[in-house]
């Protein structure tokens, strides 16, 4: 028979690295997650490669019109697509599965007994979902860049104010833009974690973060006050566009990153508190009561309100939509000058600099009865510039479609030889007319 049993000691909590590795393996063996990763790895490259060769480019999307000119534009089109719906949804779906799986499989107690520390389980799960999020973004970046460079090549890119980014600068800025959207992606990942901790295996756990992401995206399409817009984590999904002007309009972007990090911290913290308080010995406990739901939603609502308030106080202009006549005029003048110089070069005319043009713009929204501010497709602008080597001035008309996020498409309305035709005739043949349609961006926070 056995010897005397020695006094047992309580087992210490399992080390972190195996716990993390276990969570990662559980995620990565799932067919669903693998399929998503595979799609993220292949689809962008295929899309960019195919679309870049087409004659009709996705000009509604920022940089879409430059897809056949440089490989870097393709990656930015993917970035814009991903930011509008795909990324927030994907990330919150991945994250909300991390906790819900254990509820579905009924494995909480076994996991608890194996790891022996709810905190460590939480940390391992949060970090595993973070890893998969980064992996997802990494796949999108690599795939879209490779697709673009392979199909079109490493060429210079025209920024959102018409200035030329050399291939090297374009490469750096594209990677930076992708890096910037990692923070809002994390925020949505954290919201997904919170949803699945709160709602367990109920399908609501998957639905709530997704619905929240969609609701925020819809809110950002409306002419809401800038302070409120910047207080939403989704804003950073749009603000990266500011990197493509000169100088970069980094205000909204930096605020977006900070807000996203605050949301990430708040949602993760809430999820953590709710998670470690849960009673895993009670098998009938599955999801939260209405009270916990409110307790979780309230801090996030307060965070949004407080951020909006701080921004409104710190920047008095931010109670409006941020789309102002003077900003549009300045932005269009700059973009026009840059692109006029480009056109001049394409036509092999005597060279001219932006400064020599002394471009100025006068904009009006919807005639005399409509106040001249706010987004809309009824902006009409007249650009005037000094013709090089002559005392006369030239003028051209643009119709602007300005969206609530500060991005606009200016559509040339004549004269024909300046901006009325989509192509210009050069000595080597017809090439796209850079002045025909142009993308622009105004800094909503800028006080102009």
């Amino acid at each position, binding site marked *: 028979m056995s010897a005397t049993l020695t006094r*047992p000691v309580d087992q210490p909590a399992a080390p972190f690295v195996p716990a993390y590795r276990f969570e990662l393996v559980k995620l990565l*063996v799932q067919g669903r997650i693998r399929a998503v990763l595979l799609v993220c790895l292949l689809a962008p490259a295929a899309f960019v490669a195919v679309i870049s060769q087409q004659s009709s480019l996705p000009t509604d999307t920022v940089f879409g019109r430059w897809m056949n000119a440089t490989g870097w534009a393709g990656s930015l089109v993917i970035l814009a697509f991903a930011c509008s719906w795909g990324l927030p949804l994907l990330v919150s779906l991945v994250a909300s599965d991390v906790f819900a799986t254990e509820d579905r499989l009924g494995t909480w107690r076994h996991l608890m007994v194996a790891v022996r520390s709810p905190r460590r389980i939480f940390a391992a799960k949060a970090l595993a979902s973070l890893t998969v999020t980064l992996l997802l973004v990494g796949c999108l970046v690599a795939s879209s860049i490779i697709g673009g460079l392979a199909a079109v090549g490493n060429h210079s890119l025209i920024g959102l104010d018409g200035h030329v980014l050399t291939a090297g600068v374009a490469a750096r800025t594209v990677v930076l833009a992708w890096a910037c959207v990692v923070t809002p992606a994390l925020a949505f990942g954290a919201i997904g974690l919170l949803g699945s901790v709160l709602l367990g295996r109920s399908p609501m756990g998957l639905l709530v973060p997704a619905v929240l992401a969609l609701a925020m995206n819809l809110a950002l399409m409306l002419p809401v006050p800038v302070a409120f817009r910047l207080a939403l984590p989704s804003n950073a999904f749009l603000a990266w566009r500011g990197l493509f002007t000169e100088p970069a309009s980094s205000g909204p972007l930096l605020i977006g990153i900070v807000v996203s990090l605050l949301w990430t911290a708040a949602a993760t913290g809430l999820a953590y508190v709710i998670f470690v308080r849960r009673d895993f*010995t009670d098998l009938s406990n599955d999801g939260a009561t209405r009270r916990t739901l409110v307790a979780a939603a309230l801090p996030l609502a307060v965070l949004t309100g407080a951020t909006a308030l701080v921004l409104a106080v710190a920047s008095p202009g931010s109670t409006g939509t941020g789309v102002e006549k003077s900003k549009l005029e300045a932005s269009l003048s700059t973009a026009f000058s840059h692109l006029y110089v480009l056109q001049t070069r394409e036509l092999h005319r005597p060279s001219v600099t932006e400064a020599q043009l002394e471009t100025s713009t006068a904009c009006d929204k919807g005639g005399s009865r409509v106040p001249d501010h706010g987004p809309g497709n009824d902006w009409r602008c007249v650009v005037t510039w000094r013709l090089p080597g002559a005392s006369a001035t030239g003028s051209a008309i643009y119709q602007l479609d300005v969206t609530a996020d500060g991005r606009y498409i200016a559509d040339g309305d004549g004269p024909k030889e300046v901006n009325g035709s989509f192509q210009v005739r050069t000595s080597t043949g017809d090439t796209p007319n850079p002045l025909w349609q142009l993308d622009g961006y105004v800094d909503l926070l800028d006080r102009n």
Partner: protein
Amino acid sequence: MRSTPAVRARGISKWFGRVIALDEVDLDVGAGQVHGLVGPNGAGKTTLLGLLLGLARPDAGSLEILGTPARQTLVVPDGVAGFVDGPGLYPTLTARQNLAALASLRGTRTSSAVDDALEQVGLGDVADNRVRGFSLGMRQRLGLAAALLTHPRLLILDEPSNGLDPAGKQHVHQVIGRLSDDGVAVVLSSHRMDDVAALCTDVTLLATGRVVFTGPLAKLAAESDENDYRVITSDSAKAAVVAADTPGLRIIEAGDALVVRGPVLAIDHLVIRLVGADVALRELTPVVSPLEAAFLALTHTESPL
């Protein structure tokens, strides 16, 4: 040298709201003992095993596991392993991946330990198959293999023979026998007396949270003197009349086959009287085994006829 009992429970009770799942239960399990918990559905077997695993705390009474008082929930003392409510496996992982993950969470890295555990329960051939495709019995055995990884001194198994085919049962029985020889205490539950009879040295019978019997298996068989017998004769009508006259016997069912209940002595009398009445006895069989009868009698479950 006196060995510390693996389990020592005194008067433990557990309530779920207004339902009492365990009512002042005493339990003693010594090292090397294979102890069966038997009882009908809802008797409290799983609840008691959960307490032993540290998944919950008793509401009243004292509980010592391997000599240490049970304290916090979800903190299992070193040396205790097992599972209740299913083996808790991840269906998308292979058998090997499931075990390897558990092994690394416990700080043991050796892949040979995993292979060894899989061999012991007879799952070596399917080690790299996903658990998704495993049958109930294969999952049970994999759960047992997971428990073996930690080299436990107290093994807790909830319905380990559930869903096992004869070969699987044999693997499990062999493993449990070997562990017991090594001095490991095993507490397992079942609602089948024959499983318990094949595996256990000691049993505790539970009925609605109360202990109705605890002790060596041999004592249980002697506990109940009554059993049901099926009697087939040349003249069943006459036999029924004779049986009704026999003192100490009750007729449970009359018909082509007569079923009577009573102590062995009364059955002896019945046979003698039948022969005396010119009725030929063609068959006399106990409806259930003596252990089963004791179980049914003690837990007041109606005999399944």
